[in-house]
Structure formats: structure tokens, C-alpha cells
């Protein structure tokens, strides 16, 4: 060991020989996985767009096609369960492309020993969720793995929807001056799940915001043709979503801390656990980037809809600092809202 005040430092670790939990968190590790493992071999120009859904042309009709997998633990939580989450999540991926959701598939990976009652409850919940959209579950699959795999139950879904004529949503359309609209309170889902896992009790019960957004999207598209793109801030939170858009569109984004709606309960939980609400998952919210002249009208349309009641304009797209998302704090100072590498680790310091 060197004497005092001589510098010392660890050797960098060998890279990436195993999958880590962080690879699934929607941050830069996830992005690297796509870039290094999947995209180079799958070689599809459509895949390379990496939107929430793929829009494919089939005999003149534009179909939106998406897939998603659900591994949430606990299986049942306040405001939903893995089943309703699966339906809403897939419908939302389609809706973010402006598509009307039509059909879903549902593949189940079941752990040996799972209670039949659990499966029935989940299936019933999926049926209810699908009926409320409405969307039809037309095909599926079931596999059973030995005890110890699948954490009880995993669900994979795929969804197909129809993109209306003239609707073209993509981060590529985003340009400086566009406004950033958020449909409501951040962090409800992630904190509700975490709270349940950690046994944190709330005075007013906090529930997941899991909900299908296709109705809200339809209202928004009805009032304006100048919505550039939409995304739902799921894993990795608002931060990941905005960072992805900023990178894809090669623009900067500036958001106002003051404007971002966060419930007291969520704020409190984040304080206590050392988490930042900007990185916490949402399952019933969307971010829309809208031309400045259309922003007010779109906001009003959102606020008229039950899922957009608390919608707000939270930021602006800028030509400065491309790919960087900055936040103007309540003090008027700025800080970067960075892409997370892996999962957000709760702070103890």
C-alpha cells in the first residue's frame, strides 16, 4: 500500500461476461445489450429504430407490432397484478405509436407448484383488463418450468394494432422548440411495488397507476396533427424516456422541476429510501412531444380525459446540449438528468 496521500486506484473490471440485473432496468446497460448482442445479428432496419413498437407495412395497411414480458414481483399489488399490467403495458406500447390496439397474445411461463387459484385470478384480471380497452386475446401459450424457475409466473405478450392514416409518431420528428407534456403524477407504480415489497405503509394507500392509454392517445391525436412522438415512461422512469428521445433526435431537453407532478406519498417514500422519482417506473402515464403552437390544445385535451387530469407541460426541446436532458431546479440552477446505468440503487448516504 502506498504511503499516505499517494494515489491508488482499483483496476477496471473485465467487461460484460454475464447478464446482471442492471441489464433489465431500462438504462444504459439495457441499451448496450441491444446494441452489442441483438441488433447486430437480427439486422432489421425497423428494429434499429428501437421505438416502443414496430410499425410495419402490410398490403398498404400500417400495423403496429410489439412484444413485452412481465416478471413483476409481487404478483398481486395495489392497483393491479401481473396480468392487468401485461395487458395495459402491451396496449400502451401500441398506443405510443398512435395505433388502435386490436389483438394480443399471452404466453405463460408457470413455475411448478404455482397455486391454481393464483393463475385463475391472474387470468380473470387479464380478461377484465382486455375487455376494458377493448382488445382481444386471440392466441397464447403455456409452459411449465421446474420449481425454482419463473418466480411463480412470468407472462410474455405480443400486440397488434392499426395505425391510422396520417399518424406518424417518432422521436425523429422532434425538433427544438417542441414542448414536453406529461400526463400525470410520476412514480406511483414503482413506489407502490417497492412499498409492498419493503412493508412500508402509507396513510392513504398508494396504488400502481397501471392503465390503458389508448383512449387518452386517441383524444390527443384528434385535436392535433403536430404531436411528434409519445412514449410511456416505464422502467427507468421519465429520465430514461427523455434521454432516449434526446439521443434519437439529437436534441437537448430542458425540464422544470417545479412543473413535474409528484404525489406527496411518492415524494416521501423516495426521500426515505434515497430514490429519485425521475427514475421510478410508471405504468399509466405518457410523455408527448408536441409542436409549440399545438401544446396548449393538446394539454387541454389530455386534461379532459380521466387519465390526463393532472397533465402538465414540463419542459422544452432545445438545440443546445444535444442528447443531454437538463433540469432547472426550484432554485433556478441546472443539473443533468442522467441515464442510469443499471437499477437505481437506494441511497443510504
Amino acid at each position, binding site marked *: *500500500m*502506498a*504511503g*499516505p*496521500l*499517494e*494515489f*491508488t*486506484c*482499483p*483496476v*477496471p*473490471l*473485465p*467487461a460484460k461476461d*454475464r*447478464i*446482471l*440485473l*442492471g441489464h433489465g432496468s431500462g438504462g*444504459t*446497460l439495457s441499451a*448496450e445489450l441491444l446494441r452489442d448482442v441483438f441488433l447486430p445479428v437480427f439486422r432489421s432496419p425497423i428494429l434499429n429504430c428501437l421505438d416502443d413498437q414496430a410499425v410495419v407495412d402490410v398490403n398498404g395497411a400500417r400495423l403496429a407490432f410489439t412484444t413485452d414480458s412481465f416478471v413483476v414481483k409481487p404478483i398481486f399489488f395495489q392497483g393491479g397484478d401481473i396480468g392487468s399490467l401485461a395487458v395495459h403495458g402491451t396496449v400502451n406500447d401500441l398506443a405510443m405509436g398512435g395505433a388502435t390496439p386490436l389483438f394480443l397474445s399471452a404466453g405463460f411461463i408457470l413455475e411448478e407448484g404455482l397455486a391454481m387459484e393464483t393463475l385463475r385470478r391472474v387470468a380473470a384480471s387479464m380478461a377484465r383488463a382486455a375487455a376494458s380497452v377493448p382488445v382481444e386475446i386471440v392466441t397464447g401459450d403455456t409452459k411449465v418450468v421446474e420449481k425454482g424457475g419463473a418466480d411463480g409466473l412470468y407472462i410474455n405478450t405480443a400486440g397488434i394494432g392499426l395505425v391510422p392514416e396520417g399518424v406518424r409518431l417518432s422521436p425523429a420528428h422532434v425538433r427544438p422548440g417542441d414542448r414536453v407534456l406529461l400526463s400525470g403524477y410520476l412514480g406511483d407504480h414503482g413506489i407502490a411495488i417497492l412499498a409492498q415489497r*419493503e412493508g412500508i405503509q402509507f396513510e392513504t394507500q398508494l396504488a400502481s397507476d397501471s392503465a390503458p392509454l389508448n383512449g387518452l392517445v386517441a383524444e390527443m391525436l384528434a385535436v392535433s396533427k403536430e404531436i411528434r412522438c409519445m412514449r410511456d415512461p416505464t422502467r427507468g422512469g421519465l429520465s430514461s424516456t427523455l434521454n432516449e428521445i434526446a439521443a434519437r433526435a439529437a436534441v437537448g431537453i430542458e425540464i422544470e422541476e417545479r412543473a413535474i407532478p409528484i404525489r*406527496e406519498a411518492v*415524494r*416521501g417514500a423516495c*426521500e426515505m*429510501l434515497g430514490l429519485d422519482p425521475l427514475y421510478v417506473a410508471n405504468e399509466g402515464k405518457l410523455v408527448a412531444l408536441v409542436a409549440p403552437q399545438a401544446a396548449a390544445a393538446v394539454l387541454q385535451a389530455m386534461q379532459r380525459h380521466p387519465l390526463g387530469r393532472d397533465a402538465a407541460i414540463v419542459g422544452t426541446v432545445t438545440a443546445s*446540449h444535444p442528447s*443531454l436532458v*437538463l433540469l432547472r*431546479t*426550484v*432554485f*433556478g*440552477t*441546472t*443539473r*443533468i438528468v*442522467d441515464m*442510469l*446505468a*443499471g437499477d437505481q*440503487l*437506494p*441511497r*443510504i*448516504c
Partner: protein
Amino acid sequence: MKYIDEYRDPQLAQSLAAEIRQRTTRPWVLMEICGGQTHTLMRYGIAELLPPQVELVHGPGCPVCVTPLEILDKAVAIASLPDVTFVSYGDMLRVPGSVSDLFRVKAAGGDIRIAYSPMEALKVARENPGRKVVFFAVGFETTAPANAMAVWQAKREGLRNFSILVSHVLVPPAISLLLSSPRNRVQGFIAPGHVCTVMGYTEYEELASRFHVPIVVGGFEPLDLLEAILLLVRQLEEGRAAVENQYVRSVTRQGNEAARQRMLEVFEVTGRNWRGIGPIAESGYRLRAEYADYDAERLFGVETITAPEPPECISALVLQGLKKPHDCTAFGTRCTPASPMGAPMVSSEGACAAYYQYQRHMAPANR
């Protein structure tokens, strides 16, 4: 939330900043010690509110950052054992050891769990009598009483499957070392408020008078830190060097007797290595002999693991406030939060990570 929100009032922040600007007639270099304080400074962009003559440098206040390589290697060795359940605070999981880190051990099948409290680890031990549960007891003085309580309780219950891997460090010896260095540029310190909540601030009085340096015990909200900075600037401008307590709502001169008592029943002072700095005498805690049965280093025979730390990154210079993160040629290129080379880049309190995450857009353009 009470005692939080009002200390984030933007108006008062601006007023404090204005007051600081008015008082500052000369350049001053100030250091905050605690990672939590670094986090607040970065997250609220406090440096932007200060006059350019007030320079903030970030000290070795992140226990994650100063945990020496060999402790990480010991943790990895223990956590890799098949009958061990290794419980840790989240931040420690990504810190690189010599060849691995705890996340990688987890990926390879190690039973590693995140806890928010040492008592949770105790609970795991009670509920899993067949597993050897080891808690990673890292931290400053703030966390030592809680860790002591866990061990004390374990002994009281006669738990045979619980132990802790200790890496506790103490703040005053580090300040002393920094101030003794001929290269020291720091003229005033913000002492860590929560450490002082437990320990009081009598130890800092000795430092202030020996080195003739003002020290202000500061809290963790933006107004706390701005007020602490103001108090330091005032002292410096007036040529004073005393200890002042800004964080009066939580800190008393004597600290918390009850907490210290429990802590000293279980721990005793020892020398410790600080990553990036080296060995500092009497700068940490170890378990007392009566609690040897709860010492994971002894139980798992990892006492002899040592780790040579080849020089590469400037962690040490950053941790001592001699360099800014962006002075490092690897900053943001070879060393980023995603692939950290040094601990200050791993922990979200580490100066490099905080700087990278929140403020790198402020770094001078030429690198």
C-alpha cells in the same frame, strides 16, 4: 414534509446566496466531508448560486468511496461461499474490488440481498438458521450505533449464524490528515451533520484550534448547506477559526450519549486503510474481543486478504479535494458510472459520480 420542505425554500436560498456574495471579498476554498452533502450540493446546483471566489471541493465523505479494495475482496470472497447469505446496503454492490464486485457474485449465483437496516439482516439470520448471514457493516460514525445494536442483539439472543464484515471509518482523523498535508488547499470545513448528531463536535474543536481552520457542523438540505457556507465565509473573512453548529435542530455539542454507549460496547478504535488515501491511524472501528464470534473476517478466515492498488485513476486526489473530477483524463470516457474505475464514480455520493451525473455540462470544454 416537515423539517425538509422548509429547508428547500427557493426564496431563502436566494437570500442566503446574496448574503454570501456580499460577505465574500477574497477567494476561499471550502470542503464538505459527507457524501450526502455532496449529493445535495450537486443535485440542487448550489455552486451556481455562489460567488466565483468561493470554491467547493468534495472530500472523502463517501464511505463507499473510501472502503479499501481489500475489504471489497473479502466481501466478494465471503459472499461467494455457497452457505452464506450476504446482506448489504445497495450502494456497495457495484463497487469494484480487485477482480469482481458483489453484483457479479450475485449473477454467478451468490445469495446477496439488499437491506435498508442492519436489523433486517438480523431478521434474515433468525429466519434462516441453516444459512450463515453476513452483514456488510460499512459507514461512518452515523451508522455504527445501528450496526452495534444488531451485533449486541445477536449476542443477547445467542444467534450463531450472524456476523458482520466491518469497515467503519471515522471523520476527524481524515480531516487531520488532509490538513497536515503540505498540499492542502482547504481553508474551511463543513462537518458532517449526522456524524455529529451521534458524536457531538468536541473532536472538531481540537482540529479547528490546532490547524486554525473554521469548521461548521452542517445539515443536509440546501438551506443548511448554504447557511453553513455563509458561516464559514464570515469566519474566514473575519480571520476566525472556531467550530460553529449550523445544524442545531439535530446536533448538540455532546452528541447522542445512548448511541455512543452502545457503539463503544461493541466496537473499539483501530487503524484503517482508506481507499485513495492509505492507512490512517485510529481512523476506524473494529469489533471488541468479546464480540469476536460476530466478526466475519475472523469467522471466514479472510483476514489475510490484501490487495495491491495499482495507480490509475486520480481517486485519491479527488477524494482529497486536490483535483476536480473533470481534471481526470479518464472522466466520462474510460471511467463513467456505467463502468467505473474508481469508487468515487460508483457511489451516487462519490464526487465523480455526482459530478458526472449532475454537473458535467459545467465542465470546461477543453479536455
